C-alpha cells in the first residue's frame, strides 16, 4: 500500500512537471512570436511619428540680419545691421565675444545671402556695397573639454555697378572650385551678375537687363553646383539663365510659372529642385525633366499647402529636402519636397517672424520675431522622406518624368533623394512567388497524385525520401546553382528551354496515351520498372530531338538569336538572371513542401472511399478526380498555401538568382527585387535608426504579416474544406 501511494505520488509529480513544461513551451512560442512582432513594430513606428517643433530657449535682442550656430549647438552668432557680430554662449547664457564688419560711417547692412553650407555670406549695404565674409565656429579641444572658437574672416567687398544706390534681390553662391557668383538688382529692374573665377583670378560683371526686358525683378536664386540662375518678375515670369559660361551668361528660357507675382525663390539640396513662393501664398517645386519631345524643361512637380499670404522667405535645410517657408503674416511652414508634405504649421504665437534659419544639423530652427526675441526650437523630424504615400504611392522624384514607384534607397551623397517605395519590392516578391507557384504546383501535385495513387509501392518508397531530401537542400545551394550555373545555361539555350517547357508536357501526354494503347494484359506483364524506363527513354528522346532542332530553328525563324529577335520584335529584354530561372529555382524549394503535404493528404483518404468508387465502375483516374482529390482538397490547399508562404519568405534563392532589379514588370525574362532579398542586402548598409533601417524593418513586418495571413488562410480554408469533404 505504502509503495503504491509513493508511486502514485511520483506519477502525479511527473505529470505535473510534464504538463508544466509543455504549457511553458507552448506559451513560450506564442510569446516569442509576439515579441518579434512587437520588436518589429517598435522599430517601425518612429517612421510615422509626427514632426514636432518645441521651443527650447529664447534670447532677447535686436533682430539681426543673419544668424547661425555651430554643429554642437553651443554658440550662436548674430550679425546686426550696424556690422556688429555678437557671439552668444548658450550654456553661459551670455555674449562671449564681439566682432565687427568694417562699414563706413552711417552705412547699414540691409540684407544677406549665403551658401547652403553657410561657409560664406554676402552682405548688402544701403550704400550699394557688397561685403563678403565668413563666420567660422570651430570646435577646439583641450583635454576633455570642447570649446567653440568663433572667428570672422573678411573676404572681398565691392560696390554694385551703379554705386550709391541701394541694391535688392541679392543672391550669392560659391561652387566647389571656389568660384563665386553674385546677383543683384538695382531700382528693382536692372539685373547684374558678378562672377569671380578663382583659378584665373578674374572677375566678370554682366548686366542682364537686356535679357529680362526690364521688368520688375522680385526674387533671385543661384545654384552654383549646376550653374543656374533663376530670376522672377512681378508677372509670375521665371527667367532661367545658364551661367556656366562666365563670359556670357545665357538666358536659356523664360516662362510664366504663376499668375501671381513670385516673391521668393530657393534651390534645395542637390541643386535640381527649385522652390517658388508667390504673393498669394502658393508654394511649388519645379525641376527639370525630359518631356515627350526629349527636351529638358522645368516642370511644376510638387505643390504644397497654401499660406494665404505672401511668401517672404524660403530657407532650405542643408541636410535633406526639408525647407521652411515664411509668409507676411508671420506663419512658418515646414515642408518636405519628396513627399509634397507640409509637416508643421507654426504661427510663433502670432509674434511675427523676421528671420528664420536652420542649425547646421537641421534639428534646431532659429526664429527671430518682431518683438526682438530669438527663439530656438527643437525640430523632431527624423524620417520626413517616409510617409504612407511615399511607401505605397507614386512619388515624383527629381529627374523622373512622371510620378513613379521607385526603390533606390541609397545614393552617393547627402544630396541623394532616397526613393523608398515598397511597391516594387512587394511586386517582386509576388512576381517571384507567382512564377515559383506556376512551376511547382503542377509538378508537386501531379507528382503526389502519381506517387500516392498510381506508382508501385517500391517506387513510392524511393521517390518520397528523395523529395524530402530536396526539402533539406540549403536554399543557398539552390540559389548558387540557379544564379551561377543555370542562368548562363538558360541564356545559351533559351529556345530549347522554351520549347521543352511547352512541348514536353504535351509529348508526355502523347507518350502516356501510346502506352495506354498497349492492351492491359500485355502491360501487366511488364513490371512497373519497365513502365518507368519507357517513360524515361521517351523523355531523353524528346530532349535529344529538341536539342537537335533548336539550333536550326533558331537560325531559320529567329534570325539566329532568340534574345535579339524577342528584343527587336517585341521589345522584350532578356536578363541573364531572370524570373524564369528564379521561378524554377524557387519552385525547387517549394515542391517538397507541396509534394509532401499533398501526398500525405491523398494517402490519408480512406481506402473504403476509393474502393466504393472503383466498385461502382469508376476508373482509377475518375476515382482520383472525383473522390480522392475532393476528399484531400483541404490538405492540398494547405500544402499550396504553405508552399506560397515559403516562396514569399525565401531569401537566398531570390537574392542570388535574380538581378535584384526593383522594376515593375511581369516579364518572365527579367528579374525582380524581393522584399526578403532587399532586407538581406541592405540592412548591413543601413545606419541604425535611419529611415532605410526602419523601412527595412517595416518590410520585415510586412513579410511577417503576409506569411501570417497566408498561413492563417491555409488553416482556415483547409479546415473548412476538410470539414466539408474529409469527414470519413
Amino acid at each position, binding site marked *: 500500500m505504502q509503495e503504491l501511494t509513493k508511486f502514485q505520488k511520483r506519477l502525479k509529480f511527473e505529470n505535473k512537471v510534464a504538463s508544466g513544461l509543455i504549457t511553458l513551451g507552448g506559451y513560450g512560442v506564442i510569446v516569442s512570436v509576439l515579441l518579434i512582432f512587437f520588436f518589429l513594430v517598435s522599430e517601425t513606428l518612429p517612421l510615422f511619428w509626427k514632426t514636432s517643433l518645441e521651443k527650447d530657449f529664447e534670447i532677447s535682442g535686436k533682430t539681426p540680419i543673419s544668424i547661425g550656430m555651430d554643429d554642437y549647438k553651443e554658440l550662436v552668432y548674430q550679425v546686426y545691421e550696424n556690422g556688429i557680430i555678437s557671439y552668444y554662449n548658450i550654456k553661459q547664457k551670455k555674449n562671449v565675444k564681439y566682432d565687427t564688419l568694417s562699414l563706413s560711417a552711417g552705412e547699414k547692412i540691409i540684407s544677406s545671402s549665403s551658401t547652403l553650407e553657410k561657409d560664406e555670406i554676402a552682405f548688402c549695404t544701403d550704400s550699394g556695397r557688397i561685403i563678403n565674409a565668413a563666420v567660422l565656429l570651430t570646435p577646439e579641444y583641450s583635454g576633455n573639454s570642447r570649446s567653440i572658437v568663433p572667428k570672422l574672416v573678411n573676404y572681398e567687398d565691392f560696390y554694385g555697378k551703379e554705386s550709391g544706390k541701394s541694391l535688392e534681390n541679392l543672391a550669392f553662391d560659391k561652387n566647389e572650385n571656389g568660384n563665386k557668383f553674385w546677383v543683384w538688382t538695382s531700382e528693382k529692374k536692372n539685373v547684374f551678375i558678378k562672377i569671380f573665377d578663382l583659378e584665373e583670378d578674374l572677375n566678370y560683371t554682366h548686366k542682364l537687363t537686356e535679357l529680362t526686358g526690364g521688368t520688375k525683378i522680385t526674387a533671385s536664386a543661384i545654384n552654383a553646383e549646376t550653374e543656374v540662375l533663376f530670376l522672377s518678375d512681378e508677372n509670375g515670369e521665371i527667367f532661367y539663365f545658364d551661367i556656366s559660361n562666365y563670359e556670357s551668361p545665357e538666358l536659356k528660357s523664360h516662362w510664366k510659372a504663376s499668375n501671381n507675382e513670385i516673391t521668393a525663390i530657393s534651390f534645395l539640396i542637390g541643386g535640381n529642385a527649385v522652390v517658388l513662393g508667390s504673393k498669394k501664398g502658393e508654394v511649388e517645386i519645379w525641376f527639370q525633366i525630359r518631356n515627350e519631345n526629349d527636351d529638358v524643361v522645368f516642370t511644376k512637380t510638387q505643390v504644397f499647402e497654401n499660406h494665404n499670404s505672401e511668401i517672404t522667405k524660403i530657407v532650405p535645410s542643408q541636410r535633406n529636402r526639408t525647407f521652411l517657408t515664411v509668409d507676411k503674416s508671420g506663419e512658418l511652414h515646414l515642408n518636405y519636397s519628396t513627399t509634397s508634405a507640409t509637416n508643421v504649421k507654426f504661427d510663433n504665437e502670432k509674434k511675427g517672424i523676421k528671420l528664420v534659419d536652420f542649425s547646421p544639423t537641421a534639428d534646431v530652427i532659429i526664429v527671430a520675431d518682431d518683438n526682438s526675441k530669438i527663439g530656438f526650437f527643437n525640430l523632431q523630424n527624423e524620417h520626413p522622406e517616409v510617409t504612407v504615400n511615399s511607401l505605397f504611392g507614386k512619388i515624383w522624384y527629381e529627374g523622373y518624368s512622371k510620378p513613379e514607384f521607385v526603390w533606390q534607397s541609397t545614393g552617393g551623397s547627402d544630396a541623394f533623394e532616397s526613393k523608398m517605395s515598397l511597391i516594387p519590392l512587394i511586386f517582386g516578391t509576388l512576381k517571384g512567388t507567382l512564377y515559383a507557384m506556376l512551376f511547382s504546383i503542377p509538378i508537386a501535385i501531379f507528382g503526389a497524385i502519381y506517387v500516392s495513387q498510381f506508382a508501385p509501392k517500391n517506387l513510392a518508397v524511393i521517390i518520397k525520401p528523395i523529395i524530402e531530401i530536396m526539402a533539406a537542400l540549403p536554399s543557398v545551394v539552390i540559389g548558387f546553382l540557379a544564379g551561377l550555373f543555370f542562368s548562363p545555361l538558360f541564356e545559351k539555350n533559351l529556345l530549347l528551354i522554351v520549347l521543352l517547357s511547352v512541348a514536353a508536357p504535351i509529348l508526355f501526354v502523347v507518350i502516356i496515351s501510346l502506352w495506354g494503347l498497349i492492351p492491359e494484359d500485355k502491360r501487366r506483364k511488364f513490371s512497373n520498372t519497365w513502365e518507368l524506363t519507357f517513360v524515361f527513354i521517351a523523355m531523353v528522346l524528346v530532349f535529344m530531338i529538341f536539342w537537335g532542332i533548336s539550333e536550326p530553328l533558331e537560325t531559320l525563324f529567329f534570325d539566329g538569336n532568340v534574345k535579339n529577335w524577342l528584343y527587336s520584335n517585341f521589345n522584350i529584354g532578356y536578363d541573364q538572371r531572370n524570373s524564369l530561372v528564379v521561378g524554377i529555382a524557387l519552385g525547387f524549394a517549394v515542391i517538397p513542401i507541396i509534394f509532401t503535404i499533398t501526398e500525405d493528404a491523398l494517402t490519408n483518404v480512406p481506402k473504403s472511399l476509393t474502393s466504393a468508387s472503383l466498385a461502382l*465502375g469508376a476508373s482509377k483516374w475518375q476515382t482520383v478526380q472525383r473522390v480522392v482529390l475532393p476528399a484531400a482538397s483541404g490538405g492540398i490547399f494547405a500544402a499550396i498555401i504553405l508552399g506560397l508562404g515559403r516562396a514569399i519568405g525565401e531569401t537566398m534563392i531570390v537574392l542570388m538568382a535574380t538581378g535584384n532589379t526593383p522594376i515593375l514588370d511581369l516579364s518572365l525574362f527579367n528579374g525582380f527585387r524581393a522584399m526578403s532579398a532587399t532586407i538581406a542586402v541592405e540592412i548591413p548598409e543601413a545606419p541604425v535608426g535611419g529611415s532605410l533601417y526602419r523601412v527595412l524593418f517595416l518590410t520585415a513586418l510586412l513579410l511577417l504579416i503576409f506569411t501570417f495571413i497566408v498561413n492563417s488562410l491555409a488553416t482556415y480554408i483547409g479546415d473548412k474544406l476538410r470539414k466539408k469533404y474529409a469527414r470519413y
Partner: protein
Amino acid sequence: MKINVQNSISASFTTDLSKEKIILETKNVDLCYVPQVRTLTNVSIQIPEKKVTAFIGPSGCGKSTLLRCFNRMNDLIPGISIKGLITIDGIDIYSPETKLEELRKKVGMVFQKSNPFPMGIWENVAFGPKVNGIREKAELDEMVESALIQADLWKEVKDRLNNSALDLSGGQQQRLCIARALANKPEIILMDEPASALDPISTNKIEETIDELRENYTIIIVTHNMQQAARVSDYTAFMMIGEMIEFNATSKLFTNPEKKLTEDYITGRFG
C-alpha cells in the same frame, strides 16, 4: 442439374440447382495473397440468378475474398494470384476482353462498413451513373429516385437530397450504399456483411430491403450470422479454411446438412 465436386477436406457434396438459371459460376478457383499460401482452394460454385445466396463460415475462411473475386476488387492487391475460371453469364470475367469498369457496373458491391462519399445524398447515388457516362440531369434524377425507392430510403431523404450523406444514421448510410449500387442497374449485388455494424432495427430494415430486391437482382451476401442467412437467403454456401464445404438450398442446409462439418458449425459447436 446435378454436379459433383471433389474437395480436399470434404468428400463431394450435391447441390440441386435444377430449377435455377445459373448466372455466376466458379471453377476450381485458387487464390494466393502471398505466394504459396492459399487463401482459397479449389472453389467451385454456381450462383443462381435472381436468388439470394449467402456465404457463411468462420471468420477468416475466405468469404470476403471469394466475394471480391466476383467484381475483381482483389486485382489491385500486389502479389495476388488467382487461378481457375470465374464466369458471369458464361463469360470469363478474367479474360483480357473483359472491361473492368463494365464488370463492376454489372456487379455492384456493398461493403461491410458503410462508406458513403463525403458529398450530398444525390451526388452519392448519381456517382455510378455519372462515371459511367450519363450526363442528363433528368435521367440522373430518375435513376437516383428509383434507386432510393428500391433501397427503401426515398421517403426518408427525398426532401434533403443535397444534404451531406454523412449526416444520415448508420443504417440509412448503409441503405444509401445499397441505393448507390442499385443506381448502376447491376445484375448482381455483392454484400459483405452489410449489417454487421448495425443495430438490430437497422439490420431488420436492411433485411427487408434485401427481401424486396430479390425479385430483380441476384444477391450474394456474406454473413457470419446464421439466423440472418437462414432468414434472407434461398441458398447457402458454407466455407471453411478457404474451401467450399457445402452449398445447398438454405432450408436444406440448415435442417439437413450433408456434411458433419456443416452440422457442427450450424449447431454452434465451433466457429
